[in-house]
């Protein structure tokens, strides 16, 4: 492989990292409050509210059932409005964020539901407000499980980012398609896939490590 090719590979790697990490951060910013609301508005939780819970649940489900490639095309106007263009690495962040946010919301919800209701009851008995329970009980107690969930989201986003690449988003997926597939460069195809595998492995190991550090249940 020529030095030019290596240069392309390195650029593509950083583009993928940029897309995945920025969209994970944004999706978490949106998904976290959504997940918290989905949890606390459940019938037996601290702020039961069936209408909000069902409406929000339906929206999340709808967003999650739309195939990514369709979502990406469908929201092109929105992407243009936010980024100013519908093509490019930054533009790819919009659909990636929108598809990951409901996923993260559900992940946060299931992490929060794992918490022993007795602990929440104890906080209520001490006079904690719902906001204090969320900030001081639910989120810290679930943090190790949330970290694992977000790791899962990052890895799914690495896959989606390859798809986004096909629609002009850049990154490793784009490189694999344009050079590896369309120009029959098997070596580039293989290297790209290897880089992706290593990325996923590294993310998973990092997530496992952080989660284990945060988990004080087993010491």
């Amino acid at each position, binding site marked *: 492989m020529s030095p030019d090719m290596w240069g392309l590979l390195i650029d593509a790697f950083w583009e993928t990292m940029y897309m995945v990490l920025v969209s994970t951060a944004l999706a978490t910013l949106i998904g976290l409050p959504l997940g918290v609301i989905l949890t606390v508005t459940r019938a037996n939780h601290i702020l039961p509210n069936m209408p909000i819970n069902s409406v929000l649940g339906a929206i999340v489900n709808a967003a999650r059932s739309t195939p990514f490639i369709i979502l990406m095309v469908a929201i092109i106007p929105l992407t243009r409005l936010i980024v100013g263009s519908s093509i490019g690495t930054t533009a790819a962040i919009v659909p990636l964020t929108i598809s990951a946010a409901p996923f993260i919301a559900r992940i946060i919800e299931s992490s929060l539901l794992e918490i022993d209701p007795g602990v929440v009851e104890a906080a209520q008995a001490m*006079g904690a407000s719902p906001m204090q329970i969320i900030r*001081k009980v639910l989120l810290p107690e679930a943090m190790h499980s949330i970290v694992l969930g977000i790791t899962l989201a990052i890895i799914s986003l690495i896959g989606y980012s390859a798809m986004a690449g096909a629609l002009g988003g850049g990154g490793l997926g784009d490189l694999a398609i344009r050079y590896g597939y369309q120009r029959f460069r098997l070596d580039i195809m293989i290297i790209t896939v290897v880089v992706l595998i290593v990325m996923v492995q590294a993310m998973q190991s990092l997530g496992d490590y952080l989660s284990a550090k945060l988990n004080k249940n087993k010491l």
Partner: protein
Amino acid sequence: MITLENVEKTYYSKAGNIAALKPTSLKVEQGEIFGIIGLSGAGKSTLVRCINMLERPTGGRVTVDGQEMTAMTETELRQARQHIGMIFQHFNLLASRTVRQNIAFPLEIQGKDKTFIDKKVSEMLDLVQLEDRGDYHPSQLSGGQKQRVGIARALASDPKVLLCDEATSALDPATTKSILSLLKEINEKLNLTIVMITHQMEVVKQICDRVAVIEDGVIVEQGRMIDVFINPKHPTTKAFTAAVTNAELPEMVQKMRLTEAYQPGAKMITRISFIGDVAGEPIISGMVKKFAVDVSILYGNIDQLKDTAYGTLILEVSGDEAAIRAAHDYLNERQVRMEVIGYES
């Protein structure tokens, strides 16, 4: 300190309504340890949760320290709860926090400053004898230690009342004892009112001043713990007390062929129970000296009901008819509870 007036709780559902607590009235005095005993499903958990409104009663009034809990808004209620401590069967500590941080939790909620919190937490660790465990996480502690942290956390905000929800049910007997003596010590030292719900009669026996027996959402009997133990009236109460006061006759006595009426030459089998100071009186030697009877002890047991000694003896009294009758009357006149089990010929 705590008054419940016709408090009731019904759960409404499509499958039918469940009356977990039928209209119940109760009064807990300042500084006493009040036990509520019942089998699982009797409604005792609901009852204790109605005191701090974790369960909102569907009827009646709850007053704690002069404040009517049932009339409060959510905000007022949160304020009031900060003065009512609670401990739980499964401790309910925050796994992600250290022991110190767990004890600090209620104070953080109240917005106390860091210096105050640090000082108070150290004081509490001292009180529950966990000075060297402050930086541990709950998962590194034994059950008894976890409950001590629970107690420290509940007391950190200087509550007027402590509610204990099956606080010792998940602990082994030795640990149960040490937690109970800690609670008793705190009750005496801080003059703290304690309400305990439990299904263990041992718990009531060791520390309660008064007790209520609950069954199917109804309080079937209540009174001073000693009275309830010595003279239980309701069948459920009898079943509870029998296990710890040895009200059942020992096998050896059960196997005897006894008659209800005196027959010439028979021996009298009698059970006497005594509480407190009477235990020190030489009743039996007095009887033997006074009347021409012989006494042998078939069975004896001395127990402790909180701070009061409580003893039971089963005696076999032999002699001629007149002497036995005289001995019978003599025992009956003492400050003891006496019952004739039967006569053995």
